[in-house]
Each structure stands twice: as structure tokens, then as C-alpha cells.
């Protein structure tokens, strides 16, 4: 059974400033009998093709006591399979002038390759092979686990603010497994076994839990034939796919924490608020625009007040939208001699201003233009188009959002920004982490 459908090309976002139109991502969609969803986007301008396989399993699905497991598993997917020895993916990509990588998100895990287009069939075969089964051995499992432990040191322990971002994740959710940082911990990584790997693959790595996206240089009929040939034989298990059902409760009060770490040159403050789900567009899209107004570009409100105002040396604001409730986060790393309390006060004043007074037409348009230009940059490559579609599918449950999302951004009004700022960032309760060097720890005081 083939269900082909061509996306409507009607949703073309227009930049308010001039006649720039964002070319929509024109994709085709079909579903194989075993449940695998297939999206394809043809672009024959360069002889390369991007192959993405997105699995609907992420860090939120880490087994109990195994934080970091989904990410460790992602690494193991590059080891041996039924028909491929370890690292063969590199032979099929890097060795022929392409590349591969993978990313573990909270809600999904994306595997992707970009290769000269004459290798498309080879890579479809390879992705199908590792979707089928892994045959990892003890030696390469342990060695790769050591690599992930080094990645943990590299990302969390070595950078002076690594532990702040780690703590922000841990402290921001009360119940939802999003509270476990995707990189995990050394102890939990050490506890992982090959048996865990096998169980995880058979539970989550199956055609009805995956999306195949092919973008770039291909001939449609040929692609469809190869997809049928290599993916159709993969059986759809009868078992149900377990899904996280934990509901994050609303925050009833503000939570304040002081975190100490070695080697912190300047203090910092991080604040988070809960956001609606990414696919609750009426509120989520304006929150995304609000984050842009607050911190994107040197003329944004927080950059002007905090960084140009010489309170902080760096400031970020981000609407980290997820499949379930996400986080609106603001982080400021202080400038020399400045205290986190000063930054927090300014941040709160800026949020209050954004909620009280409508943003001007010019400032709103500026934010929209920045978002639009950044979407254009993502669409420069086939790989970027693959990411746009994958994210739309996972977070918005709708590939069409890759195009419609830009139109939704254009439609955001000043009143929308005011409303969501008030609802989520003023009435919502923040988690506030003050991050200080160990030397600031009160003697004998336990935090």
C-alpha cells in the first residue's frame, strides 16, 4: 500500500520588509505497511543527498537508573550489525566523501548521513540494516561507554559553566523524566550493560517508531523502489511501544537554589519557566518570538541591558520547546565584579516590561526577520531541510509545520507576545539557580 501525498505549497511566508519569499520545503510522504513513515524532498542542484532516520525515542526514555542511556545507545548504533562490522557507517560515508552523525534529543534520536548521491542505495541498505538488529560485543560496548564518559567530562566537567546548564535541567522538572540530563552521569553509564542495549533496540528501534527522510539528489521512482526493497522486510513487532506518561505538575512556587562548582571565574544566574508543548502553537510560537525579542542580536533587550549595560558578559534566552512541556530559559554570566542578583533584577524588569507594554511594530518585525533569515540559512543544505522536517514531525507531530511554522511566526502580534509573557514568565513560577565558585560556599554549611 502506498499513500503518496504532495504537501500543499500554499503556505509561503512573506517577509514583511520586502518581497523575500521563503521557498517552501516541497516534500512527498508515504507510509510502508510496517509503519515506517517516509518523507522525500528532491533537490538536484548538487550531487549529494542527505539520509535521516529519526526514531521516536530520546533521553526521556532512559531506563530507570540508566540516565544517559539513550545517548550511549546512539553511539552503539555505529558498532556492528547483522551485516556490518563496527564503524562501517564511516566506510560508507566519510570514506567516499560524505559524513555521518547522530543527535540524541529529549524526545527523539536522529541519525543522518550526507553522501555523494550515487551512494544513496548503499546508505538506505545500511540504515535498514541497523534498524533490523545490532550485534554489539562486550569490547566495543565498554570502549564506547568510555568515549561517552569522556564526552561527559568534555561537556559538563571541563567548561566552567557546564555544571550550571546540567543543574538547570535537573532542577527544572519535578516529575517528568526530562529532568535527567541526556548526557547522564558516570555512575549510571557504568551501570549500563549489553543486555540493556538489546532490550532498548527491540523496544524502540522498529519501523513503526521511525521516520525516514531523504533530501537532495535522487530520482523519485528509484528512491521509492529502494525504500521498498530494503525497509519493507523489517518486521513490525506486535508489542506496544512504551510511552512516557508522566505529567509534569504545574509549579506552585518559585524555587531558588545555589549551586557551587570548582573553577567558576564569574558567578552566573540561570532561570527557567515551564512552557506549553511545542505543538500548542497559539502560545508556543509567541514564546519563541519573545525569546528572540529578549536576547537575539546585540539590539535585543537583554543584550542591551545586561551585556551592553556591563552587568553580564554573556546573556542567553531560549524557548526550548519539546513534545511535552518545555522550558523557557534565561542565563546570564556575570561581568567582573557584578552579582547575580543585579542580573536577576534586570531580567525580571525586562520581563515585566514585555508583559506590560506592547512591543513596537518595528521591534516585532525585527524579531520576525531574524527568525526568517535563520530559517533560510538552515535551508541552504539538504541536511538542513532534513532537520527542519524531522523537528516538525517530532515536536509538532506534523511535517507541514516546517513550512507553516514560518507563516505562524509572521502572524504573531504584539498582543500575543504580551499575553504569553504574562501567562508563562510573570505568572509562571521560575526556578532560579545562582551559580558560584566553591570558595563562596559558607563554611560547614550544607546546600
Amino acid at each position, binding site marked *: 500500500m502506498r499513500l503518496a501525498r504532495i504537501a500543499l505549497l500554499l503556505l509561503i511566508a512573506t517577509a514583511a520588509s520586502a518581497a523575500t519569499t521563503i521557498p517552501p520545503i516541497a516534500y512527498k510522504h508515504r507510509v510502508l505497511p510496517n509503519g515506517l513513515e517516509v518523507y522525500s524532498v528532491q533537490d538536484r542542484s548538487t550531487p549529494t543527498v542527505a539520509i535521516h532516520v529519526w526514531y521516536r525515542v530520546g533521553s526521556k526514555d532512559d531506563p530507570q537508573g540508566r540516565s544517559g542511556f539513550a545517548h550511549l545507545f546512539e553511539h552503539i548504533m555505529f558498532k556492528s550489525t547483522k551485516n556490518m562490522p563496527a564503524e562501517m557507517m564511516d566506510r560508507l560515508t566519510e570514506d567516499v566523501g560524505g559524513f555521518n552523525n547522530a543527535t540524541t534529543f529529549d524526545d527523539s534520536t536522529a541519525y543522518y548521513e550526507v553522501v555523494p548521491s550515487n551512494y544513496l542505495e548503499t546508505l538506505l541498505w545500511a540504515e535498514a540494516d541497523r534498524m533490523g538488529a545490532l550485534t554489539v560485543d562486550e569490547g566495543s560496548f565498554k570502549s564506547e561507554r568510555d568515549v561517552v564518559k569522556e564526552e561527559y567530562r568534555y561537556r559538563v566537567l571541563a567548561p566552567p559553566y557546564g555544571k550550571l546548564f546540567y543543574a538547570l535541567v535537573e532542577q527544572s522538572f519535578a516529575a517528568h523524566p526530562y529532568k535527567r540530563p541526556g548526557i547522564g552521569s558516570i555512575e549510571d553509564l557504568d551501570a549500563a550493560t549489553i543486555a540493556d542495549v538489546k532490550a532498548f533496540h527491540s523496544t524502540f528501534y522498529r519501523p513503526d517508531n521511525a521516520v525516514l527522510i531523504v533530501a537532495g539528489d535522487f530520482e523519485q521512482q528509484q528512491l521509492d523502489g529502494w525504500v521498498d526493497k530494503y525497509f519493507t522486510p523489517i518486521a513490525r513487532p506486535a508489542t506496544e511501544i512504551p510511552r512516557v506518561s508522566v505529567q509534569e505538575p504545574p509549579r506552585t512556587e518559585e524555587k531558588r537554589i545555589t549551586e557551587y562548582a570548582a573553577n567558576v571565574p564569574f558567578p552566573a544566574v540561570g532561570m527557567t519557566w515551564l512552557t506549553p508543548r511545542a505543538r500548542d502553537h497559539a502560545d508556543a510560537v509567541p514564546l519563541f518570538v519573545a525569546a528572540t525579542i529578549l536576547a537575539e542580536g546585540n539590539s*535585543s533587550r537583554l543584550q542591551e541591558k545586561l551585556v551592553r549595560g556591563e552587568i553580564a558578559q554573556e546573556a542567553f534566552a531560549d524557548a526550548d520547546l519539546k513534545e511535552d512541556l518545555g522550558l523557557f530559559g534565561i542565563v546570564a554570566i556575570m561581568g567582573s565584579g557584578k552579582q547575580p542578583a543585579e542580573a536577576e533584577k534586570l531580567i525580571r524588569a525586562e520581563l515585566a516590561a514585555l508583559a506590560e507594554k506592547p512591543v513596537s511594530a518595528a521591534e516585532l518585525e525585527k524579531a520576525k526577520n531574524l527568525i526568517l533569515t535563520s530559517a533560510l540559512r538552515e535551508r541552504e543544505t539538504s541536511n538542513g531541510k532534513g532537520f527542519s522536517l524531522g523537528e516538525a514531525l517530532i515536536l509538532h507531530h506534523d511535517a507541514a509545520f516546517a513550512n507553516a511554522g514560518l507563516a505562524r511566526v509572521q502572524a504573531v502580534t504584539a498582543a500575543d507576545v504580551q499575553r504569553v509573557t504574562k501567562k508563562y514568565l510573570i505568572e509562571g513560577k521560575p526556578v532560579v539557580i545562582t551559580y558560584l565558585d566553591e570558595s563562596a560556599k559558607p563554611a560547614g554549611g550544607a546546600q
Partner: protein
Amino acid sequence: MKRTVLSLLFAASLSAQVAPPPPAAPREAKLPQPVEKTLANGLRVIVVPKHDIPLVAARLLIKAGGAADPADREGLASLTATVLTQGTKTKSAEQIARDVEALGATLTSDAGWDSTSVNLSVMSSNLTAAMAYVADVARNATFAKDELERERAQAIDSLQVALTEPRPVAGMVASRLIFGDAPYGHNLGGTPVSLGKIGRTDLVQFHATHYRPDNAVLVLAGDVKAEDAFKLAESQFGAWKSSSRRVDESTSRRVAESTSSSKTRRLEDSKPRVVVIDMPESGQAAVVVGRQGIRRTDPAYLTAQVANSVLGAGYSSRLNQEIRIKRGLSYGAGSSFEPRVDVGPFTAGTETKHESAAEVAGIVVGEMSQLSAAAVPEAELTPRKAALIGGFAQSLETTSGIVTRVSSLALYGLPLSDINRYVSGVQAVTAADVQKFAASNLGGKDVNVVVAGDASKFVEPLRKQFGEVEVIKPEELDLSSPTLRVRKAKR
């Protein structure tokens, strides 16, 4: 060290296993074709049209960077570039940021070693409006005192942060070991002390000396027609006059002297050092191995790229194979040549837990030597060349990637047609070329080794491997001195 490469890939091999389907015939890639014109004032304008996405990337390249920093003003080029966008004769820093961002554009400027770049990325419909800001900051920056103070404070703060991290610390120390007191030896961004010495006059003078049309190149790539780009360049930069001052003599003399002296040093004075920066509280150790590399115009440039592709560029290069894939000692290991106007650095490095730092340093040095000890087998050389060519092709898929490639050719005075010769040039490099090149450029003996991390966990095994090891505490470290140590007599 023996290495095996899976060469049986596309043959049906192991018993129960199925071989992958072989590739089809490749399709030829179309390379971007630059067109150029030089304005009457000497500004060279290069355009690479590419119309698939309504986006343009542009760079105004000034042919002067950190190598031109006076010895007692380390970080001057970098600070000049930072303050450049913070106000002109007619517009304040806030206005510039607001106007540029209203167009959805990003405008940045930063200094490299041999050049300074003012970069623009903008949707094509807003190109004309946005280019006016590139021209305004390049031509009319005022370097106001309060803007300088603000940027200086910011730069010092971010240096303080970098100095707590093993990776940047090891990199800065390696530059000093490789180049001594030659211009490439200092930290590009300066040090907290050197930044403190820079005054407004220094910035104004650096700008007047180097930012001039006959010392600049404007590169545009993306959704713009060549003739429109030339017209735009003429309207925004046509009236830009070169100041009467020629390139500051003291600066040019300094570069010239260092050019000859670095040759000398390379032959006679290259006593390599092994230095440990003791950072007991850091979360991981950083290892950097470095030595002098090549000039960008060296005829062996492509051979160096191929040698490095085998050794340390890309996931499947030898360093990553040995350190990450085989031993699980790091998240990643790699190396690079950074060819410049003068001889640039070669560095190889990785991060690992403190306990394995000495082992990893030994592996890096061993792999460098191995490249000259034995010819690279064809079964390994072919995929490493393919990886290099693939990376080249990928870099030309985006407007900013094209601008970077083309600017680099222009900066080093190389023909733009080199873009068309890259693939065949890489293909022509032989295993014998690589081995010969490695013998004189990648020897494992005359290398500097830097490890930043908890010295107590690796200093003994490091001594066993390398002999003399200098241990420096962060508070004793002076990045402005070739000795790397603060002189205690002063102050």
C-alpha cells in the same frame, strides 16, 4: 603501528553477511564560478552568484590581522575589529545593531592572524540596505572611548573564563612554544595585561593603516547578480579613499624580520619543550602537540592537507582511530595545519581524563612519526583523499562556506581558479609525497607538547616518555613571554 583498513567493502565477503549494494556512477558536481572586478580605488570585488535560496553572504576582508599587533599591544587587531561595529561618524552602536537586525541581518567583525573580516549574512532583498552598514563601519568607525572601555572589559572577562579551561590554555601555550616571540606566538585576543595597555590611538592608527581599499577584498556569494553586486560595491565603497599613510613601516618590518627569523629558528633554534600547566581542579586534561607547519603558498599545501587527513582530520583519521575508537580515551582527537602568510602552526590535540593524558600524548607523537616511517597504504590513502574532497564540496554548499573559501584564496594571492583544481590536485598526491612531506614536517622528535590538567595525575609518566618536563602553575603563567613565566623581579 599496524593498521588495517576494511578494503573488502563492496565484495561479498564474510559468510552469512550480505554486502552493501555498490554505488552507481557518480554525478559531476558544479563548482561555483567567481567573477571579479577591481574598483578604481583598488578594492577588489569578487562575486559568486548562487540563486537557489534568497540569501547572500558577504565579507569585507582586510589584509591585516593579529600578526600585525605591535609586540607590546597583543590583541590590538582583535580589539580593533570588535570596536569597529560600535559606532560611526553618523550612527551609534545601538543604532547600527538595531538597523542591521531589523533587516534580519547579522553583521560581525573579527580578526584572524593575517586578516580581519567584516561579515554579513542577509536575505537578498535586504542586501543593499545592509551593505551600507558594512561600508559605514569599515570606513567611518569612530572607536569612541567608552565603546573601547566596554569592549576591553568584555574581552578581559572572556579571557578570564578561557584561562580556567584546559583546552584554550593548552592552545595558547602551544602558540608560544611554536613561535616564541615571533608575531604568531601571542594569543590572538591578547592577554588581560596587554589589553589593558591598548589606547584609543592604537585602534585609530591600526584602522587608518590597514583598513583601506587597496588593502581589502569584498566577497559576495549567493542570490545576487554579478553586475548588481559590482554596482553595489561601487556605490558603497567607490568613494573610499586610501589614507596617504602607507602600511606602517615598523609593522611591515616586524613581519619581515619575523619571516626570516622564523626560518632561522626553525633550522637552528627549535629546541622543543614539554610544558605542563597544572590545573588540579579542572574536569579534564587537554593535550596539544605542536610545531611549525607551512605557508599557505607552499607548493606542498595540498600534500599537507592529504597528510593531515590521514593523521588527524575527520572521524576515521589515525588519531581518532587510535585514541577514541580503539581505546575509548577521548570524545575526539584531531590535528590541523593552519597555513598562513608566514609559516603557520601544525597542532594535534585531544581531551582526556587526567590519568590518561601522558598515554594520549605518546600516541599523538607516535602517530606523527609513523607517517614518515612507513608509506600510507593505498587502501587508506584513497578514502582519506575522498574525505578531504567531500569536505571541500560540502563547504561550497552554503553562501558563507563559499565566501570563506574564496576569501582565503584572495587573501593569500592565489588564483581563484584554484577552486577548479582542488579535486584533481588532491587526487594527484601520492603516498610517497605524503611520506616525504611527513619526514620534514611532521617528525615526532622536534615537537612541543603541552598538557593542561591535574599534573599530579600525569607528570611522572610524562617525564618517563619525554624526559624534561616544565610544570607551570596558572598564577606563574605569562602568555606574553616566550619563557611562559612571570618575571618575578618586576613590579
